[in-house]
């Protein structure tokens, strides 16, 4: 059985999350390496068998993206609790995938759009009046609240996570996994078209006869695509990638294909 986690393990994971969470952010798997870095000392303890550890390490390099301030610490905290309870990969990945989308939505709205806009507009107007306390105030109003809210989420989720697991039996974990996976699928269905962007500026001329008069009208292809299926191009792109991966293409090959198609399409004015 896995070793019991100590407070030192938790704090180690917390500081690793704080210092490097979005370093290495990339289009392919976004916050993946930062997430793995934060959870690594935990999974090293909960997977003492070397082969087990390798598998856990690889699993935690999957795609991950959420708000780094409100969202990420909550998911890591809850994940640690699940690890401690000996949860399966399906459970921990289900938790991550199920929570990252909704928490990104909440976090981006609350932290970026609301809180930051308020403190930075106050700071900026003080700065424009020549008051050097403006930026200092904004920085202080970032430093303490951000640190507090991240620590609190992390610890709260860890404690709730443990309680949750203890309260239910092991059968509950499977149900929670299924629940998280289903919510995750629904969220990804909406999340993907909201982030992948692809439109076409192409148009063609059509002749229409209105009341016996022939008129030339320009028809935008994008508008017609939208009428058939909104976000058709982003959805198609995502499914082509999915299909290529299923066919055994390596992610690097898919990236190169996307770069060639995207750059040429944009440069030639087919997309954009």
């Amino acid at each position, binding site marked *: 059985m896995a070793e019991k986690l100590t407070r030192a393990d938790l704090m180690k994971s917390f500081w690793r999350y704080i210092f490097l969470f979005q370093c290495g952010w*990339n289009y392919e798997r976004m916050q993946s390496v930062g997430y793995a870095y934060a959870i690594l000392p935990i999974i090293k303890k909960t997977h003492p068998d070397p082969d087990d550890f390798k598998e856990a390490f690889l699993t935690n390099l999957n795609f991950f993206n959420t708000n780094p301030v409100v969202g990420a610490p909550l998911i890591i905290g809850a994940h640690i609790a699940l690890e401690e309870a000996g949860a399966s990969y399906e459970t921990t990945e289900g938790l991550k995938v199920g929570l990252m989308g909704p928490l990104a939505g909440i976090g981006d709205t609350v932290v970026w759009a609301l809180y930051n806009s308020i403190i930075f507009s106050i700071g900026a107007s003080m700065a424009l009046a020549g008051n050097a306390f403006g930026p200092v105030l904004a920085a202080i109003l970032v430093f303490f609240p951000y640190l507090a809210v991240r620590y609190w989420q992390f610890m709260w989720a860890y404690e709730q996570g443990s309680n949750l697991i203890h309260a239910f039996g092991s059968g509950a974990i499977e149900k929670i996994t299924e629940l998280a996976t289903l919510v995750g699928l629904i969220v990804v269905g909406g999340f993907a078209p909201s982030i992948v962007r692809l439109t076409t500026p192409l148009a063609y001329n059509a002749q229409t006869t209105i009341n016996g008069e022939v008129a030339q009208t320009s028809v935008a292809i994008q508008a017609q695509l939208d009428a058939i299926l909104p976000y058709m191009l982003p959805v198609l792109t995502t499914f082509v990638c999915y299909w290529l991966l299923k066919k055994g293409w390596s992610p690097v090959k898919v990236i190169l294909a996307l770069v060639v198609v995207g750059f040429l399409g944009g440069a030639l004015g087919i997309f954009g």
Partner: protein
Amino acid sequence: MGNFGTALILAIWAYLCVFDMLGPTFILAYRPLIAGFVTGLIVGDIQTGLLIGGTLELMALGVYTYGGATVPDFTVGAILGTFFGKGGNFETGIALAIPAALLLTQVDVLNRFLNFIFVHRADRYAEEGNDKAFDSMMVIFSHMIWGLSRALPVFLAVAFGEGLVNSLTAFFNANPWINKGIAVTGGILPALGFAMLLKIMPVEKYPAFLLIGFALFAYMKVPLVGIALIGLAFALVFQYLKYGKKEA
């Protein structure tokens, strides 16, 4: 060239702004208000730093990189704007800050792309079970591409003057196809991330749930939190029907 010392210090500051954004988020140093103010301290003209930083901050108030989208780089804009605007040349500073911010947009797509190197190295370390090598990569290198992608332009612009920024801007304006190509590429690259995610999820077992999420977003414009709540409701009903009343 007398500007090399200042160029180096401002390049380090630009790097720190990037690092704070990626990692600790202690003071949101990448916000133009903070980036400009500290630049003002460094070049000995706090007032210009406050003016340039404050002006750009108000322009960029709602501008955040939701879900990894690329936005104009007002951080570098504030640093260069303050440097070139010092000594009462506010207009020059702003006139330079905005094209610099827009130029760096292209660089942002590039560095977000190049960072895939880290995730592939990480896969290899994971297969070897080599967490020590992974840790070193994270601590030493993981912020380097992003950090240098801002630090180098700042260094070059400060060391070689505004002529460089102007001629680069002129070059990109004369060749808009480069910007367009990069912008489209930046828009479609996240598709791979989602495809990889879908590959590990039971898409073929439960395609209906993917459809529900898509329809809620595409046709009803439901925000993500709303999609998650409706998703939770659907999933709970699904489990209720599957397992019966006892326990959700």
